[in-house]
């Protein structure tokens, strides 16, 4: 780890005043500190923002506002989150270990690096995410955990977060402050597909600081959940995962929000499937057709072709579960 200067910011203003080249904001450190130890991340200054807003507050419009420094565990255990956004609680407790969830902040979870094992293998392999233009040794390598949707010839890594898949399905908004003022970014626009610049995981500009996550109100008749499929029962990244919000009325889909994890460089919003499902009968046949349509553009690599059928089955299973016992 190279030497760096450490500041603890008491307010967002103070953090923003310190922002500049080589400066990184520090949350729980569960990803950033690890990558610094590997010399993959080399910031000259760390600004500790864990002292900023940790509030989880119900809004007058029925939504929720979560302070960026709220710990993952605090969100998962919050009574109103569990009642109104069960998919978010489920997604958080499906991720990492309890110790890491106690450390990691919400903003830090969002800003963890999209990555694969080749990204970490500094001394043995080439990686366009580590060094732009150097090549990608994952392509043609061991690809069991890599992307099937939205990948490029430059990068096939997947975003590892569970929480973010739920936030994508919820149409969350991310409140950001930066050198040029404040803005609110739709969750779908925070993360990027790799294209020719896999070194950029997000659309945030230099110095921008996430201050809060806004959850819009969910229809009181909607049901939601999160399902993760992995190689072992606990403490493993997703092979695939599905976050879903489903609102059924008189046997038809009034509204549906579907997001997939483990399949792309960012949480993948299943817009094609959603479009097919809206207004259609809430039947297993319709779920199968929608899942098939969503994955019709999937591109399997050497070892991850199984993900296509696996994520289709998981979509169908989750939607079926959410329609159980409906009159």
């Amino acid at each position, binding site marked *: 780890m190279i030497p760096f200067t450490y500041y*603890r910011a008491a307010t967002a203003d103070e953090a923003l005043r310190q922002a500049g080249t080589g400066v990184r904001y520090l949350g729980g450190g569960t990803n950033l500190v690890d990558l610094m130890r590997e010399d993959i991340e080399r910031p000259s200054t760390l600004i500790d923002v864990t002292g900023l807003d940790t509030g989880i507050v119900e809004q007058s419009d029925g939504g929720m506002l979560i302070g960026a420094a709220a710990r993952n565990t605090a969100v998962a255990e919050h009574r109103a989150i569990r009642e109104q956004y069960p998919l978010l609680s489920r997604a958080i407790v499906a991720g990492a270990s309890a110790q890491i969830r106690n450390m990691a902040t919400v903003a830090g979870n969002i800003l963890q690096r999209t990555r694969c094992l080749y990204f970490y293998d500094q001394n043995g392999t080439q990686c366009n995410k580590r060094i732009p233009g150097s090549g990608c040794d994952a392509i043609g390598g061991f690809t069991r955990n890599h992307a099937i949707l939205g990948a490029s010839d430059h990068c096939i890594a997947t975003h590892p977060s569970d929480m973010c898949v739920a936030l994508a399905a919820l149409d969350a908004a991310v409140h950001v402050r930066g050198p040029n003022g404040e803005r609110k970014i739709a969750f779908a626009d925070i993360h990027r597909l790799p294209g020719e610049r896999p070194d950029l995981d997000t659309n945030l500009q230099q110095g921008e600081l996430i201050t809060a996550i806004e959850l819009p109100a969910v229809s009181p008749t909607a049901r939601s959940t999160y399902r993760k499929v992995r190689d072992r029962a606990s403490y493993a990244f997703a092979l695939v995962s599905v976050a879903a919000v489903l609102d059924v009325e008189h046997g038809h889909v009034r509204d549906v929000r579907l997001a997939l994890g483990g399949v792309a460089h960012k949480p993948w919003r299943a817009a094609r499937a959603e479009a097919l499902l809206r207004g259609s009968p809430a039947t297993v046949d319709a779920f199968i057709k929608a899942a098939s349509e969503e994955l019709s553009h999937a591109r399997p690599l050497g070892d991850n072709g199984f993900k296509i059928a696996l994520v289709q089955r998981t979509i169908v299973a989750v939607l079926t579960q959410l329609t159980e016992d409906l009159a």
Partner: protein
Amino acid sequence: MSILVNGALAEGPEDPRVSLLDFLREHQGLTGSKKGCNQGACGACTVLANGERILSCLALAVQYEGQEIITIEGLGTADNLHPLQQAFVEHDGFQCGYCTPGQICSAVGMAAELQRGVPSHVTQALDTSSIGMTRDEVRERMSGNLCRCGAHNGIVDAILETFAEVTE
């Protein structure tokens, strides 16, 4: 600024690169917390920060200035074992013992989480106010602490015996 370690004030490190784990082991001589993987995958470095279990290998010590850290040395001593340490002995909750301090600190934090109703991946109903300390709950909640000797069954038995009454 200093860090409260097992009830005693300790001066924080000058170099912000020092992890909380290295600070405890190398600066404070508290070698109970172990460096297993040093990358957040094994749980051997688990300590309690303000009562919450965390991984000291991924924590920068400077981030914990002004806060309270409890390590295995703060939970029990050779002459005065923590009840969970005694239960580990009785249930063969270890062979080599390397993961044990992390397992015990983690279980103490876990029991507090369960008592206040933090859900886990295997919790069936999210809207419940009390979650029972079942074998499945303990196995899931302790999944961040690996035991290379494979003593997990004894570990879960020791935890259940020690903390089962907490939620009943």
